[in-house]
């Protein structure tokens, strides 16, 4: 019973929602970047030299997921 009370507290629910919703966006974003990069390489193999730039954009997108994950440590 005690365990149930812990698991259903609002902070735990909030953390779970925060992680889950916070990871959806960056996951979609990174998928779009990777997919479009591969599409571009498929069309024009010369475009493979822009892999570094694709990684830079992945890092920009990734920041928001990391922010959501880090925020879960602030919620008590």
């Amino acid at each position, binding site marked *: 019973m005690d*365990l149930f009370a*812990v698991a259903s507290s609002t902070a735990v629910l909030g953390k779970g929602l925060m992680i889950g919703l916070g990871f959806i966006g960056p996951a979609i974003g990174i998928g779009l970047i990777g997919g479009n990069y591969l599409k571009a390489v498929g069309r024009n193999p010369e475009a493979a030299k822009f892999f*570094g730039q694709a*990684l*830079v954009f992945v*890092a920009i997108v*990734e*920041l928001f997921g*990391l*922010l959501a*994950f*880090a925020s879960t*440590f602030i919620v008590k």
Partner: protein
Amino acid sequence: MRLLQLFADSGPSIHVAPAGAFHLWGFTITNSILYGWMAAAAIIALLIMVARKVTVHPQGGFTQFIEAGAEFISGLVEGAFDDRKRGRKYVPFFVTLFFFILLNNWFGLIPGVGEAFHRGDNPILRPFTADLNGTFAIGIVTMITVYVASVRELGGLRKYFKHFFIGSIWNPLYLIIGLLEMLTDLTRVFSLSLRLFLNVTIGEIVIAVFSYLGHIAAPLTALPFTLIELFIGALQAYIFTVLSLMYLAIAVNHSHDHGEEDADEHFLTPEPTPAIKPARAKAA
């Protein structure tokens, strides 16, 4: 029920903020700055040693690796500017930045650093880049260098502020866009430092969680994530360098795209007719 209680155990010890290791002359020395000093001394010693060993004839091993990295970054820096001579001046700064972040990230992955060795409740050593104070200091130094360098390259504060505006500042649209650009420029120091800090800290947390879940087989379960962190540490060092390089290159190259004297004339004089207007009139 007993099994459930096993899962509801206290969990791994996780710290997002650095903790004080000891006191020195009234200052609290945190575990991250302690390891930062150690890592900085190690990096200086290591790179001086490598710089002495570099020869024209390529050698294998660690020297070759450092040489390849330095050459890669210097090629990147020189390529980012319109004329390569202009970029050559900034090569030492960016190469130093890259290796400082890269080696700090990697030194943080050595077993024993991080959550492994405790004194009381807190780990004794913590990677320098897993501390927001540390990455914020790196970000501030980088952005001040970028600002000073771009002001010097453009030749004066007036020209530097001008590059935010795409036209005359009396046009309200251009004024608002320019002010927003300035605001975006100020947030760059936060985005740079937060990205590095969060990536390294979350890597530490993931490793701690998986070595906790592994229990006896902790080295086995933590190994894949340590390898991923090895890659992410290199990637983040690359991204920090490339982004700060881009901020500098945008400011410097921008003024050379437009004719300088042409833009200078229109900067403070009213220019009520935007370029779109005649085209619209023709279409109507």
